[in-house]
């Protein structure tokens, strides 16, 4: 086991593109850290640099205190699970699992017995003599895991290990991987583009975009106190609703949300004075769908903290309903805010309001008792502490979040 450290790590490809910029990150011994971000954010490059499959352009990567920048992959004592599993097609399951031991020149009996132990752990005993092409996707995934753990390496690297599985299997394997990692306690770096996977599996989650680490924290922290608009949008499903409005101060702070003015509560305003420089200016207001409720079933929320809109779509999930509504009096987000909120080049249209929409589309995750139907007016209550504010120019969180920003 070992800790893994990155200091000021850079990766610049020969054609000049920067894949990773000034990454500094400490991963503790036995910890499972998830690197998450849209495709092209550099997360896989980071993993491949740790593996030694990619040169480090600048900075230092340490494994167990040893700088490994120029160490051959074979000498790093790490194991990796590939997105494609990369099993050896000409070897049986048993040979695949035992291959690292064979290269390490262990005696054949020892190899076989350790491969059998690992196969038992993963429920692959019956498949030991089969070839990878005879296995199902889930079984192949397990073989790849088996090949990684058989050597008892210092660090596991997992590159989107579940992305080739179907949804139900992914759900099951996600839990299995988390369990396995806890049981054997090997430091693990896990790469995924799926924020749900990242949240459920990681001790800590690092959100990346455009080669930069935006925020590192435990999953709850990322959800509750995103340091950036991008993190706020990326974590959580459906994503956080965003709208621009002016911050005012008459007694307490308040923000304009469409045609309404919503007073901020103490938690939302944060440390005294933190918001002062923004008074009279436009800020980005973030509201998680889960923190909105149909006013008809949320009698405990003060009447002032409501926004109104016209329901365009109502999706029943059983436990909740997702109500899509156009906020009254809302203007489209500025291009700057959209750029800060979405992954570059991945989903440029996601926040784009359709041309004929008068306001912005919000989503509320309401109690299923909510009586509001499609094409009806809805009053959505904003739960206490729900409002999060961001600087429209930099995308950085302001107000209560400013103290907990953990940009690396």
């Amino acid at each position: 086991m070992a800790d893994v450290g990155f200091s000021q790590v850079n990766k610049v490809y020969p054609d000049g593109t920067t894949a990773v910029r000034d990454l500094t990150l400490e991963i503790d011994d036995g910890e499972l850290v998830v690197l998450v971000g849209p495709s092209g954010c550099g997360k896989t490059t980071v993993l491949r640099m740790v593996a030694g499959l990619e040169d480090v352009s600048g900075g230092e990567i340490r494994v167990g205190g040893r700088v490994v920048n120029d160490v051959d992959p074979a000498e790093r004592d790490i194991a990796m699970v590939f997105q494609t599993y990369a099993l050896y097609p000409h070897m049986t399951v048993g040979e695949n699992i035992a291959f690292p031991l064979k290269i390490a020149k262990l005696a054949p009996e020892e190899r076989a017995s350790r491969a059998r132990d690992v196969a038992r752990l993963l429920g692959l005993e019956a498949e030991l003599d089969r070839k990878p092409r005879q296995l199902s996707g889930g079984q192949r995934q397990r073989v790849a895991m088996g090949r990684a753990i058989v050597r008892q390496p210092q660090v596991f690297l997992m590159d989107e290990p579940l992305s080739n599985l179907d949804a139900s299997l992914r759900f099951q394997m996600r839990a299995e991987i988390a369990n396995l990692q806890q049981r054997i306690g090997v430091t693990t770096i896990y790469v995924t583009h799926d924020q749900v996977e990242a949240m459920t599996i990681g001790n800590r989650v690092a959100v990346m975009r455009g080669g930069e680490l935006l925020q590192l924290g435990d999953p709850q922290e990322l959800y509750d106190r995103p340091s950036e608009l991008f993190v706020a949008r990326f974590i959580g499903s459906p994503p956080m609703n965003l709208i621009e409005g002016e911050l005012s101060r008459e007694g307490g702070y308040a923000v304009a949300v469409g045609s309404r003015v919503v007073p901020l509560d103490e938690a939302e305003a944060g440390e005294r004075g933190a918001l002062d420089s923004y008074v009279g200016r436009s800020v980005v207001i973030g509201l998680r769908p889960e923190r909105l409720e149909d006013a008809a079933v949320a009698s405990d929320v003060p009447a002032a903290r409501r926004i109104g809109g016209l329901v365009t779509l109502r999706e029943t999930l059983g436990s909740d309903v997702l109500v899509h509504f156009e906020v009254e009096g809302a203007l489209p987000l500025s291009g700057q805010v959209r750029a800060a909120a979405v992954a570059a080049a991945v989903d440029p249209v996601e926040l784009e309001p359709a041309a004929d929409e008068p306001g912005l589309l919000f989503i509320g995750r309401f109690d299923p008792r909510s009586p509001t139907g499609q094409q009806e007016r809805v009053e959505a209550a904003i739960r206490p502490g729900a409002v999060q504010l961001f600087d429209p120019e930099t995308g950085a969180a302001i107000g209560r979040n400013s103290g907990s920003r953990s940009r690396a």
Partner: protein
Amino acid sequence: MRRRRRIATALYACAGVVLGLIILVPFLYVLSASLQTESELIRRPPPIVAPNPTVDNYDYVFTGAVPAAYASKELLRGTVTQDVRQIPKGLRNSFIVALGTVLINLLFGTLAAYTFARERIRGLYAAFVFILGSRLLPSVAVAVPIYVGLRSMDLLDSKLGLVLIYSAFTLPFSVWVLTLYFSSLPVDIEEAARIDGCTRFQALRHVVLPLAAPGLAAIAAFSFLFSYSEFLFALFTTETSRSKTIPVIIASVSVNPDASYTLIAVGIVLSMIAPILFALVFRRYITSGLAASLTRG
């Protein structure tokens, strides 16, 4: 409908049989001729199937025991040529030369192709094109330079000289086929091997080469068959039975005005054995290997 399909199947089968006969009959006829005595074979019309099969001709080639039929009819002086006695040596030379060429193709072809397929070094692509392009020259055009080169290295009339010439002619194709083949293998698997503790060379040996086996078999077969039966260069660089290969010897037997047809047939039959065995053993790989490298690349 079903009847029509059955007729179609029957027609295909007939066409296949006819095609098979066209290909096989000359071979079978040569085999039959090699088992007859000269006097039987020169009858008009010649018998299709040997009436009294005998292995005396083969016996003569290997042991020098003059066939009884020749002795009795006093045909010995005119038709049993001494050249024929070189056939076993020629077979051996051909086999050694072909095997040497195969080994060189496998060794250097693999190393070169793997580099072309996996490395990004400045000038590599130019080298690749140059190697391929070198194959476009008609071989006769380089015959004189090659002859002079061999002579200066003192490799005329040697098996090694032939191996070098044939390697020069077969390697470009081998490198090309193997490069396409290696490129078609997923890089992930090699990277996994590297992380699992392999050096570059171990990854090549344990993972890449087993997966490339069909491609390797294809180039082995190709270079074997080419160098086993090559005639032109063998003819003008060899001189003695030390290095004369089987095509040269058969040719010299058959241009001899005293040549015995049955003995020529023996030479042909013997020279076919190795290529046929090779083709049978590697049949599956040759087709799948070439097809894979051509379609996947």
